[in-house]
């Protein structure tokens, strides 16, 4: 039996009309004028994410635009279904899910797995409870046996999702090319000239194509000293470069740069069975997948820069690390690092695809694309959650980019300080002994970030306005920073009032409430040490010149009386 993913109908496409159609890969561009495919409709958001990344990789590999003008040509005139299918046909035979030869995203050497016991297929899902959890009966919220058998489409999606986002899985079970649970940022170009989001009606083709690399680009990121005579774009076509003790990790010098899209950290072989109904998609398949065998010491990737993820350094000159999803999800607090290149020693690099699209923006006349951000929030091996957000971005020249960057940094720091003041105030209002408060109140901070998101992006949008010259932008930046102090005060007070209602409070507790709110408000107005730190972050003048100046004024007054 074979199941070649270049021909089988394993992808659920949603069209602009709302119809969901299980069809082949090339259907992506089918009827693109009449009723285009606008999105994927897989059963899970992590499948949606990983399959998108896979498709971007496939388009990069199969259509391989040589340079930016080749890229632009296909942006303007997407390929026909026939042309796309022909491009897929010309790829090496790396897409068979269950045949005798190389299997899609699985280990080549079947014999190595003869002694491994197959585990339930459900455990291929990243958030599933592992053996230990099941043994100890700790699967309280995400329970075992939710999905006992998969159809082949779901199995293919689940497999490539695991390989793309692989968390650490115990001794020798390697993380993905970008570590465990990376954050992905894609340019989302489907906005109209007014900046309105149009992804529900515009072709999915453009979202994928916006993030496709040219040959020039991936050649540039491939070290000149690369030494691979064989085709290593699809690692499962060759025996796995295992990583037992003593073996060197796999670096960009060892493999083709396009392997980043098809990383294979885990050694897996799927087990196929009788026909049946897929527990994930509800569809019938003549063959189901009920289990898989896994071995450790798969490929250990090191030193790669994946074009679809942002990177950061802890110190200038240190190695670049992939950004991972944080607890509490992703918000405007993270925007600076993933949308703009920072000039503080290049500590943060937005994803190469995002940077590339901002350079293409002019030619395709998409001035303010969105940034689609998503990824798992992992706590080592446990999945805490899936985070997803859509942010604005602004196409501006280098000079203006600096203004945006400095202002964003200033506002982000200030909000961080304000959230600390807020958390302290909430704790002191709610608890008599606020030093030893147990329990997780991080939601208080998240509430403030959520409440200030609109104001932040309004400030960025105002600074990015094209009808503003550089001098005007700098003056506006100062005005916006001042205004943000007022915003922070108002929003923090609102969040405080939500967390600390006064209805029915005993008088003694009411006193504590009053004191806490007073301390919060005065801090946010620039008084107190923390308040001065806040105003310093905003680079705006302190009230009365600051505590030292006010003291001097007061003692002068007292001396005069």
């Amino acid at each position, binding site marked *: 039996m074979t199941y070649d993913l270049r021909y089988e109908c394993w992808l659920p496409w949603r069209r602009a009309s709302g119809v969901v159609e299980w069809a082949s890969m090339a259907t992506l561009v089918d009827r693109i004028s009449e009723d285009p495919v606008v999105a994927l409709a897989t059963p899970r958001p992590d499948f949606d994410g990983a399959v998108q990344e896979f498709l971007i990789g496939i388009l990069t590999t199969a259509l391989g635009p040589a340079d930016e003008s080749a890229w632009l040509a296909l942006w303007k005139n997407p390929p026909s279904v026939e042309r796309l299918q022909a491009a897929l046909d010309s790829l090496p035979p790396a897409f068979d899910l269950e045949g005798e030869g190389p299997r899609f995203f699985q280990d080549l050497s079947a014999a190595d797995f003869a002694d491994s016991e197959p585990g339930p297929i459900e455990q291929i899902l990243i958030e599933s409870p592992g053996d230990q959890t099941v043994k100890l009966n700790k699967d309280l919220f995400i329970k075992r046996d939710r999905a006992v058998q998969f159809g082949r489409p779901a199995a293919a999606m689940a497999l490539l999702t695991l390989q793309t986002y692989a968390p650490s899985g115990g001794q020798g079970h390697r993380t993905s090319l970008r570590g465990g649970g990376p954050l992905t940022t894609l340019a989302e170009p489907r906005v109209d000239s007014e900046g309105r989001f149009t992804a529900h009606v515009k072709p999915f083709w453009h979202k994928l194509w916006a993030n496709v690399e040219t040959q020039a680009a991936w050649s540039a990121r491939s070290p000149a000293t690369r030494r691979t005579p064989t085709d290593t774009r699809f690692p499962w076509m060759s025996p796995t470069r295992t990583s037992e003790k003593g073996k060197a990790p796999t670096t960009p010098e060892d493999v083709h740069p396009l392997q980043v899209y098809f990383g294979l950290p885990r050694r897996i072989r799927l087990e196929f069975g009788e026909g049946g109904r897929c527990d994930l998609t509800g569809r019938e398949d003549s063959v189901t997948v009920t289990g898989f065998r896994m071995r450790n010491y798969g490929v250990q990737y090191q030193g790669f820069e994946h074009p679809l993820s942002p990177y950061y350094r802890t110190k200038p000159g240190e190695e670049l690390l992939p950004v991972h999803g944080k607890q509490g999800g992703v918000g405007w607090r993270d925007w600076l690092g993933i949308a703009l290149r920072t000039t503080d020693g290049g500590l943060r690099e937005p994803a190469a695809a995002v940077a590339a699209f901002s350079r293409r923006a002019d030619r395709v006349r998409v001035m303010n694309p969105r940034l689609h951000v998503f990824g798992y929030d992992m706590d080592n091996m446990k999945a805490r959650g899936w985070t997803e957000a859509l942010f604005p971005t602004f196409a501006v020249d280098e000079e203006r980019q600096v203004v945006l960057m400095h202002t964003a940094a200033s506002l982000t720091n200030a909000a961080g300080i304000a959230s600390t003041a807020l958390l302290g105030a909430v704790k002191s209002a709610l608890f008599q002994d606020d030093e030893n408060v147990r329990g997780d109140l991080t939601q208080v901070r998240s509430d403030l970030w959520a409440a200030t998101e609109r104001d932040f992006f309004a400030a960025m949008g105002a600074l990015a306005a094209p009808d503003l010259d550089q001098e005007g932008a700098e003056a506006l930046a100062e005005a916006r920073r001042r205004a943000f102090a007022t915003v922070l*005060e108002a929003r923090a*007070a609102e969040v405080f*009032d939500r967390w600390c209602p*006064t*209805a*029915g409070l005993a*008088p*003694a507790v*009411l*006193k504590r*409430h*009053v*004191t806490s*709110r*007073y*301390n*919060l*408000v*005065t801090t946010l*107005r620039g*008084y*107190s040490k923390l308040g001065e730190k806040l105003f310093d972050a905003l680079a705006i003048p302190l*009230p009365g010149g600051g505590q030292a100046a*006010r*003291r001097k004024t*007061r003692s002068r007054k007292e001396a005069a009386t």
Partner: protein
Amino acid sequence: MSEGEMMAPGAAPTKARSSRGSKALAWWKRLADPIGGDAASLARLRRARTALEVLEVRAAVILARQLGATGAETPDWQRRDILDLARVLAHVKEHDPSRRPMQAAGWQTFVGDRRESDVNESDRPKLGEARFRRLLETGKGEEKVAAFTRLIALMDGVAKVDDLANDFLHWNHPDLGNRVRERWAFDYYHASSAAPLNPSNPTEDAE
């Protein structure tokens, strides 16, 4: 905080009102006027102990009418509340528009985490903290009249009549009453500038 001066702008602005409080103020001003006023009625209101005795003072009925509480559809408790208000306001000798009741009676500086022994004598509250807390727990009816009357006496008969009247009338309202107490607490502890703004401040009637 070491500063005793007022903080930055942000204290709740007083709005122009045609509220029940300002009507009560106008009523009181006419009665308390040293020239054309009605000292006798005020004295009778101060002495009144039963509803009947209050109703015999024409001025009280006038107040009720001016506050729109003489129609047949007005609930009994509301009418009684206004008559009680008349008795309470009769104890006020002087209207001071500059400070709300708890601003006058409470701390004159924000204490916060400072030791109370570090605070100047002149900044200490006229209304002691224990008494303030008991005041917040005042219920309704005679208990309320007594508490407010004692408060006015403590302040030597000086009060901001319109606010006092509004606060009195809102005191037992399920939502507004809470906001009155909240506002009193911020005023008492000299933290008015940090109190929540509308709609937490009953600066106008809700009815």
